[in-house]
């Protein structure tokens, strides 16, 4: 094990996969000569050359489609979209081609591409640079969606995504690239399905993914220390398909549940997890589960307003406490 930052873990996975297979390519805006906005491809242009570490024009739908077309003839493209806000422009190729081509060709053709992109609200980037799109992509049949919450997952999920025959969307977060964590020294492939119990507890489950896993972990500490509530924290690193069994098993252990997401509530990850509670483990629940979500607004620029729009560990704590009357 060694400690590394999230971006370093991504860079290592890119490097290993480029080294492993000459048909792996990386493409995106400023990822080559400039080394990538978040350094995920730093130094790889010099190592693998312009044919394989490709600085693209600012043509999101175009270069995503190019990557998909290349994947039709055996290339394994890792496509970086600089910010998820720009991935809206590529939804045509992602949704209409990558996700559907296996099905509509009756299994003849597949698009084994990886698309990585940071979403989320950073600091005062304004409404057009603060989107979260995981809810959009997780609703698309034929697409896998994963979202690493730490460097180990960032490394291992990218490794598996490159090797997997399906198109995979990797949802990262602008605020997490400098996060440190342990990554195994040996090569490692993280499962693209499932979920992980990252803290055990018997009283309530806090479900999170990507950045909200960290709010849940902070909340669990406070709940334990100040309120004597032992929370289990489950990391839903796979958003599509969601781990129905894992969700059900945890609720069966704790009988209370919170789902925390950074995005707005409507038609979101939380909504989907709530539906799973309902369908899979309704009678296990001792109290109605609660969603912790962003305000349903375009993200404001003003610092105070921005903070008010986005949930935090505090909101998770408050939501959890609401399920324990008498503990407030």
């Amino acid at each position, binding site marked *: 094990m060694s400690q590394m930052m999230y971006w370093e873990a991504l860079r290592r996975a890119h490097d290993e996969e480029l080294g492993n297979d000459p*048909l792996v390519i990386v493409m995106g805006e400023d990822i080559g000569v400039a080394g990538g906005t978040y350094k995920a491809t730093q130094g790889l242009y010099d190592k693998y050359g312009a044919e394989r570490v490709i600085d693209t024009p600012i043509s999101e739908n*175009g270069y995503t*489609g190019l990557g998909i*077309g*290349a994947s039709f003839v055996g*290339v394994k493209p890792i496509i970086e979209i600089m910010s998820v806000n720009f991935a809206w422009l590529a939804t045509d190729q992602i949704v*209409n081609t990558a996700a559907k081509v296996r099905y509509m*060709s009756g299994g003849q053709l597949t698009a084994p591409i990886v698309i990585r992109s940071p979403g989320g609200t950073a600091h005062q980037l304004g409404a057009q640079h603060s989107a979260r799109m995981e809810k959009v992509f997780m609703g698309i049949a*034929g697409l896998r969606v994963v979202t690493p919450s730490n460097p180990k997952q960032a490394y291992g999920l990218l490794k598996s995504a490159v090797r997997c025959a399906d198109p995979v969307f990797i949802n990262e977060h602008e605020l997490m690239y400098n996060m440190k964590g342990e990554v195994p020294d040996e090569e490692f492939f993280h*499962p693209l399905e499932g979920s992980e119990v990252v803290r055990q507890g018997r009283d309530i489950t806090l479900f999170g993914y990507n950045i909200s896993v960290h709010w849940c972990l902070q909340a669990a500490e406070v709940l334990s220390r100040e309120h004597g509530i032992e929370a289990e924290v489950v990391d839903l690193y796979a958003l599509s398909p969601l781990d129905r069994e894992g969700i059900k098993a945890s609720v069966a252990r704790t009988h209370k549940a919170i789902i925390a997401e950074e995005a707005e509530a409507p038609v979101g990850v939380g909504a989907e997890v709530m539906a799973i509670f309902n369908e899979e483990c309704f009678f296990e629940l001792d109290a109605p589960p609660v969603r912790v979500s962003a305000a349903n607004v375009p993200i404001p620029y003003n610092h105070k307003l921005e903070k008010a729009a986005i949930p935090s560990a505090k909101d998770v704590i408050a939501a959890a406490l609401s399920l324990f009357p008498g503990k407030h």
Partner: protein
Amino acid sequence: MKVMPGFAQQGVAENDSELLSVTDKKRLLREMLYARRFEERCYEAYVERKIGGFLHLYSGEEACAHGVLEAARIGHDYVMTSYRDHIHAIKCGSDPRAVMAELFGKEGGTCKGRGGSMHIFDVAHRFMGGYALVGGPFPLAVGIAKGLKMKGGDEISICFLGDAANNQGTFHESLNMAKIWDLPVLYVCENNLYGIGTRIDRSTAVQDQYKRAAAYDIPAVQVDGQDVEVVYAAAKKAIEHVRSGNGPYFLELMTYRYRGHSMSDSNAYRSKDEESKWLKRDPIHILRNRLIDSRDLTLSEFKEMDKAIIEEIENEVIGFAEQSPEPRVEDLEKYVLAENDPYVHGGVN
């Protein structure tokens, strides 16, 4: 209104007719006639409700796909197009019975009934698909070209699309990328002067589509798309250019569709006068008459051929499609994701 922009008829010298042998021309005539009869039979099958959804027919435009693909290496080069795709697939080597079965939504179809008319795929013959989003294939075709260049073979990527598709952003994004990376892709614009019911001069600032390629410094020509020999000659040059590593090329073919845009289109926006002008330039008649004039064919031979084709389509193609089973409902969720992919569970080591 300009019904037919002035042709920059390059590559059509008199002796170009020598490029194709009489045998080849007769085969091409048969193929184009087969295509026409195939499409017209689809029309009937649609009326009979054997075919559902959207159905876009290629009648009138046969010389485009046949001329270009005759100059390509079939089964070697990669081809894709829009939703008007049956004939491109067949010329690439797809079994017409499987294409018809696909239109019938049957398990014996090219895509096991999952695709339909707009989504014919036949990867074994390197027909890489029919796509229903206007402009969708532009970047896919550059991507195939990128892969081909990386792998170092001499295959090329050929992308057929309509005139109106050129108003999509993907046209510009893709031509730009094809040029900056010098990728082996041939764009074939089948300019039939309409995007559904909107005539080109009402939607498009520059009506001669080949001129638009100049913005990306891509060589381009415009030729008569109704004369298969002209198309063949132009395509041969274009393909030579692309195959020898000179980067992309843009070929504009002036053509006309006889039917409405799709089966739900009444065609009311076109004048009878315009239609009859184009009917006089029917691609099958042009080649037939030329072969009759050179005494390589008689009218009765042509009629015999036509009769045989109609029978073949009825007995073999429609017969096959009728008899092919429906997909099983139990298989509804097949082909969404890869089956048993080891990396889904964290791989093998």
